[in-house]
């Protein structure tokens, strides 16, 4: 396949400057990076002198003024460009993806990997989310990071992240996706460890990178296997031929998809590789919002959705995807119940929601998965930013009084709604959305997933009906817990009495404009974002607003070109799935789900509001019993440490000290020293006594004569 031969025959739709969408963030990175380096040099001189450079003395330094415009600026431009292209694609009725190769990236022999962009409905949705939400978070960051000495560096990393994320979703082949895949991991690493002087934070970044790399192993192997089978790695070629080349449920396709699953569990923080994500909260909060909630962590979902036809061909893998998803959803939700750190709660919540997305793509509801991905980007982005605003405010307050409390511990908060009304309102909207309360965005997306899970259980040729039934129940449980822990979070933070202390409370304040405007925008999306994909089944019912909600199943139709192959496989193998949900049609399920969620919120309300005093000091709130296990996250980190990290380290030491230094090098030394030792022994014959020499000579003669004689 030639680099320029990638273009499909009928490419009537032409995007406008698609490469620029990628390049703009890169440009931003370049500019901000240069500024960052220059700022760092100044700062370094000051650090050497024993202090800290004050960039803000006499107004803002140029290195810190420019990023404010460059960072969000390039994002805005990229977003606008994406929007233009999106709109033009809307009108184009594009069926085949638009692919363009810019240059041959790796080209040798049969293997041709082009540096190519693929634009289709799926990538367009992803791009919209990335640039859109990304832009908002950049704007938020302007306020949030304003006073940080690493301001330009921060924007450089953030821009770079967006660049790689765009590469991830726009690349036209698995290897290109892999560039983005690892690139975002890198940026995640850099941003988690943004305040690298703090060892814990630096370590968290490292952990994220290494755990991600375990997943990347799966990705690489999957690519190799695909190449082995197809001699191709482009989506167009692979996905269109997959049905004809792979045997349904065969070992090859199952292996490939399981490897992809491994990759996805790493990047999307699923069991067993989710452990890095909670630690990743060490990074600045907007980063958590953008990378660890809205975009990067959803890459796994994107990967599955992108390879939907492959997963559709591998029922076992799909079941694994769904199973891992639902387990993760439930598992993380339980942990989130008992966390005290506001960001930790959100982190586990993210893990949990990602589990839902996996469940969705695992049960073949690719659209639903992507749909939840999108709505999650809105409301989880919002939640993180809100939390950021809270932390920002808390931090200021605590900073003013030099109190060394943890600005992120919810036990130190309480009653903040008085001080931060906008944040309070927007976060409640997001909470309702994530809890799946009608008619907020999360309701439509999450509930479609749960519904589809049930549908799978009842499909005509359902591969593992019982399994899917279990999934369905677990998913419901997880959904309930979601509502519960989110409500808990909101109550502990914003309601009840203020626990910061009076002096600090005076300094609590609403977030600045640059921070609350993004909140507001995201809140709007959290409310209405779900309406783009209201199920047709639901449209005419109460839950569907009797057709008042617009755009029924728009996303479903929009993604149809991407998922049609998968759906075709599903239909041919499993029969019609969509109408086999339990309890007949859709409405009942919907109702139940929404009810469950609401119930949870109420429960939480009752439970927390019923308690007049919420203890403050940490030692007073050390949980006990089962709560303790949850508080300690099921001791998974400890488990990994004990059974994975430590053994590897110990083995490494043994390899070094014993195998390398003693056995291998010892052998080498033994040869050398042994030779010298033999030499020394041989030299002892050299006694200096002539008789002995004569004797040895004679002995030699005897030996020689015997050799010859016999």
């Amino acid at each position, binding site marked *: 396949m030639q680099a320029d031969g990638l273009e499909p025959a009928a490419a009537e739709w032409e995007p406008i400057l698609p490469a620029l969408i990628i390049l703009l963030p890169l440009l931003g990175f370049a500019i901000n990076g240069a500024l960052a380096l220059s700022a760092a040099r100044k700062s370094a001189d000051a650090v050497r002198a024993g202090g800290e450079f004050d960039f803000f003395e006499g107004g803002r330094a140029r290195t810190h003024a420019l990023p404010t415009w460059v960072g969000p600026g390039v994002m805005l431009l990229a977003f606008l460009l994406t929007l233009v292209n999106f709109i033009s694609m809307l009108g184009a009725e594009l069926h085949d993806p638009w692919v363009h190769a810019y240059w041959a990236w790796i080209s040798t022999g049969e293997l041709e990997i082009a540096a190519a962009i693929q634009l289709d409905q799926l990538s367009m949705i992803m791009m919209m989310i990335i640039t859109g939400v990304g832009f908002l978070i950049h704007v938020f960051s302007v306020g949030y990071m304003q006073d940080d000495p690493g301001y330009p560096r921060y924007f450089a990393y953030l821009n770079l992240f967006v660049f790689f994320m765009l590469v991830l979703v726009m690349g036209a082949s698995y290897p290109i996706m892999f560039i983005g895949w690892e690139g975002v991991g890198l940026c995640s690493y850099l941003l988690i460890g943004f305040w690298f002087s703090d060892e814990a934070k630096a370590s968290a970044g490292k952990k994220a990178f290494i755990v991600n790399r375990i997943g990347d192993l799966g990705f690489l192997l999957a690519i190799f296997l695909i190449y082995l089978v197809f001699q191709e790695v482009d989506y167009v070629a692979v996905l269109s031929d997959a049905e004809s080349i792979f045997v349904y449920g065969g070992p090859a396709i199952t292996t490939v998809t399981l490897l992809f699953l491994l990759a996805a569990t790493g990047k999307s923080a699923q069991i067993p590789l989710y452990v890095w994500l909670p630690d990743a909260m060490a990074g600045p909060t907007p980063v958590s919002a953008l990378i660890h909630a809205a975009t990067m962590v959803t890459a796994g979902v994107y990967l599955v959705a992108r390879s939907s036809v492959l997963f559709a061909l591998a029922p076992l893998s799909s079941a694994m995807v769904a199973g891992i998803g639902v387990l993760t959803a439930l598992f993380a939700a339980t942990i989130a119940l008992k966390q005290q750190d506001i960001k930790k709660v959100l982190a586990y919540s993210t893990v949990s929601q990602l589990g839902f997305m996996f469940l969705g793509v695992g049960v073949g509801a690719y659209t639903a998965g992507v749909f939840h991905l999108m709505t999650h980007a809105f409301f989880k982005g919002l939640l993180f930013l809100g939390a950021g605003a809270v932390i920002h405010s808390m931090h200021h307050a605590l900073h003013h009084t030099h109190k060394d409390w943890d600005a992120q511990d919810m036990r130190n908060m309480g009653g903040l709604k008085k001080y931060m009304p906008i944040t309070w309102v927007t976060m409640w909207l997001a909470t309702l959305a994530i809890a799946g309360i009608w008619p907020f965005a999360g309701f439509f997306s999450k509930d479609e997933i749960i519904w589809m899970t049930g549908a799978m259980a009842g499909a005509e040729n359902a591969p593992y009906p019982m399994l899917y039934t279990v999934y369905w129940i677990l998913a419901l449980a997880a959904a309930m817990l979601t509502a519960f822990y989110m409500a808990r979070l909101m109550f502990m933070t914003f309601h009840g009495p203020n626990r910061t202390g009076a002096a600090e409370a005076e300094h609590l304040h609403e977030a600045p404009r640059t921070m609350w405007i993004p909140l507001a925008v995201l809140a709007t999306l959290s409310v209405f974002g779900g309406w783009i994909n209201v199920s047709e089944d639901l449209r005419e019912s109460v839950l569907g607003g009797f057709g008042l909600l617009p755009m029924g199943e728009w996303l479903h139709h929009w993604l149809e070109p991407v998922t049609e192959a998968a759906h075709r496989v599903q239909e041919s193998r499993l029969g019609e799935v969509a109408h086999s949900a339990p309890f007949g049609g859709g409405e009942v399920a919907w109702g139940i789900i929404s009810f469950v969620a609401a119930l949870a919120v109420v429960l939480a309300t009752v439970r927390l509001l019923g308690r007049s005093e919420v203890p403050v000091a940490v030692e007073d709130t050390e949980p006990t019993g089962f709560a303790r296990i949850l508080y300690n996250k099921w001791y998974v980190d400890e488990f990994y440490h004990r059974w994975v990290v430590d053994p590897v380290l110990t083995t490494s030491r043994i390899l070094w000290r014993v195998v390398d230094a003693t056995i291998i090098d010892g052998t080498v030394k033994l040869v050398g020293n042994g030779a010298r030792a033999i030499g020394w022994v041989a030299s002892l014959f050299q006694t200096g006594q002539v008789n002995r020499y*004569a004797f040895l000579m004679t002995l030699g003669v005897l030996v020689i004569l015997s050799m010859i004689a016999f």
Partner: protein
Amino acid sequence: MLVESLVVSGMIFVIGTLGVIVRRNAIVMFLCIELQLNAVNLTFVALSRYVGIEGQVFVFFVMTVAAAEAAVGLAIIISIFRHYETVDVDKFNLLKW
């Protein structure tokens, strides 16, 4: 008489060799070497009857060599005696290992 002569000369040669191995007196060792040369002479002479007159010529050469070696060897022994006041070769072991 050929084989007998050869055997006798072989025996003398071997005795000379033994002497070099077991005696520590440099002069006696040298004498034993002379013994070896003498044995070879005997061999040459014995063989010359069967091979040709050259064998006897060789003995002539060997005697010359023996004389030359004796002159030099004894000079060396005198020379080392001046340092050590002995001709016991075991005492001469500055050089070893």
